[in-house]
């Protein structure tokens, strides 16, 4: 049985997803303000790292990194509704790419496991 990451298509799948995902996030009025003034290249690098992790791929993300990175956003009001909005964009990105629903469910479970760290709880 190949891993989730392999079933999704590995790094090329991450590359295909990152632009679609980030474009959705930036266009989403519920959350786009959190991305004002951020460097796009750097942010896309971070999104790739995040997607690689959510796709079950190799990563060196730690809960602590997640907390530290998002702490300034939590101070600006980042809450569950924003987390849900990002998750929704991730799910629709995968649907748009034609990923099978059972794989999407697995990705969403991994992404969802970061909620407490992202929201600093």
């Amino acid at each position, binding site marked *: 049985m190949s891993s989730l990451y392999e079933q999704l298509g590995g790094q090329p799948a991450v590359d295909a997803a990152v*632009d679609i995902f*980030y*474009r959705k996030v*930036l266009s989403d009025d519920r959350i786009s303000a959190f991305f004002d*003034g951020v*460097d*796009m*290249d750097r942010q896309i690098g971070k999104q790739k790292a995040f997607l690689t992790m959510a796709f079950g791929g190799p990563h060196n993300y730690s809960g602590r990194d997640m907390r530290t990175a998002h702490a300034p956003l939590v101070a600006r009001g980042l809450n569950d509704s924003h987390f849900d909005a990002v998750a929704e964009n991730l799910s629709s990105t995968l649907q748009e790419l034609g990923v099978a629903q059972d794989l999407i469910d697995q990705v969403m479970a991994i992404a969802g496991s970061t909620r407490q760290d992202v929201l600093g709880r």
Partner: protein
Amino acid sequence: MPQLTYDGVTYRAAPGESVLDALLRQGVPIANSCRAGACQSCLLRANSGQVPAAAQVGLKSTLSEQGYFLACLCHPTEDLQLEEAGGLEVAASLAALERLTPTVLRARVRTHQPLHYRAGQYITLRRPDGLARSYSLASLPDDHTLELHIRRTPQGQMSGWLFDEAHENDAVTVRGPAGDCFYTAGHPDQPLLLAGTGTGLAPLAGICKDALRQGHRGPIHLFHGALRPEGLYLQDELHTLARENSNLQYIPAVMEGGEAAGLETGKLDTVIAHRHPKLSGWRGFVCGDPTVVQLLRKKFFLAGMASREIFADAFLQAPAPQTTR
């Protein structure tokens, strides 16, 4: 605290202090400009001691392997023996200085040995007293001189000198090139969108000429924005270039006062979006003021341009000179 040895003298870096700040604080004149790792003016070489990897970000592997690093990004963790990176500079002289507008000067610089570069990259121009600033290259390597567009900045030391005091044949040195905002061959039919304000036109005009020279066949749309018509420059040259190359469109745009001159009027991103609502499949180049660059690359991306197809060069402003006490 790590010790820094430079020119036979030993200095100490305070906690949290960069090598650049430590040396400047102790009176060592190290050329510097952006202080953010972009311009590479403060390049130094460590003969002994290991510099942190973060101080070599963006350097060519050939340089980092020789111990070159950026003093502004280097927070030393061990003793370093330092020397100037002078060997990488080439001697040059000012070949021509031409005011294109009251605030934009075209400087042509003749290097005494050929410089290998790509139009759109940037070099660091250094005056004999050490003052250094980075400028983008509007010329092609085949041209006899480097072409730079100098914007006069308030209290700008280098721009003030070039505008008011410098003469042809004055000696300078050139270091570089650096930067990855340039045309690459391989997709001759891809549509290209080039946009920027002010002297962001320098790299854009260079990239445009380079693409044409390399036989680019796809559409090339060059947008240059200014506040008012008098802020535009090189209009005749670019209109001529567009007449000579049917795939090139040159669209100058201003924020105000453009109607009388028959110019596109409005914010640059709006003018572009009006003509190009969808940009998937395009390649984009954005240069100049950092705020404009950031806005345009985001708008291009949201209009469908792939992130890896967007090349940007945000001009960082050197900090204002410190007042002498």
